[in-house]
């Protein structure tokens, strides 16, 4: 207490705290600074590389579009897709049918044609037909 009062009476403690702020060693600062700068350079180089590739692609697309290359390329791609499709999915499937004596017997029955019932005509005739049906059957 005596020490502090004697040596630092009237001393601004805030100024003392600022002045006595701990400082890192210069070696530590240089090392960490180099690390931070290297990382920044690397990330900047990476983003520059991506930007360059993007720019080159855009220029190429523009150049192609100006001479109608885009349409040509798309039609070529479509043709290629059709060719591939033709190769992968064969059109005519050969069905092997075993010939035998029972082949006619067990052939699938043909579907019967069902005649459509004639629709009753509307109008004058309808009334007459209805009357005929209502008449009792002839018993002899």
């Amino acid at each position: 207490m005596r020490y502090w009062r004697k040596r630092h009476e009237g001393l601004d403690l805030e100024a003392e705290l600022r002045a006595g702020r701990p400082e890192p060693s210069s070696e530590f600062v240089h090392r960490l600074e180099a690390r931070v700068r290297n990382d920044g350079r690397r990330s900047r180089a990476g983003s520059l590389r991506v930007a360059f590739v993007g720019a080159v692609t855009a220029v190429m697309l523009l150049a192609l579009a100006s001479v109608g290359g885009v349409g040509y390329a798309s039609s070529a791609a479509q043709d290629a897709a059709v060719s591939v499709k033709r190769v992968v999915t064969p059109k005519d499937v050969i069905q092997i049918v075993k010939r035998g004596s029972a082949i006619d017997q067990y052939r699938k029955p043909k579907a019967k044609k069902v005649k459509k019932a004639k629709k009753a005509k509307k109008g004058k005739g309808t009334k007459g037909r209805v009357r005929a049906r209502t008449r009792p059957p002839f018993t002899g």
Partner: protein
Amino acid sequence: MLRRDPLADPAPLIKRVYAYAAYRLGDGPDAEDITSETFERALRYRKSYDPKKGEPVAWLLGIAKRCIDGSWSKTEYATEDVDSPDTTDLEEDTIRRLTVSRAVAALDDRDRELIALRYGADLTARQIAELLDARTNAIEVALHRALGRLRGILGADEPEAVRKRGASQ
């Protein structure tokens, strides 16, 4: 639109983060470790820095605070022993620095953090309030009280070495 790099000028930022860590943990390897860890995290998440939320130093101090509160919360404050060195070889300002450092170490965590942010990292009360999610006025009052307690500690705690020197004179 190009984004502003928060670590464009790292040297002053390193010094401020180190000063903050040193006021909280003590000057030395622990503070260096925290500073390194803070910058490693900052490099990893540098794209997440939002200039609208504050200055790069406030962003870094937020990271440093989390580093200390997380893994370093149980670390004891590393104080240099004022009594052990031969005081006749030490400059007066060195003794003073050590005395202040020891007094800061005697403060509680909250006071030490405020002192570290205000006088170590050199943040304004407003910046501290933003960082700690408190009101500026409350921070100013808390800082005033912390300084009062620090004065009390400095007044009561006289270094043994100085007493010895006083006795020899």
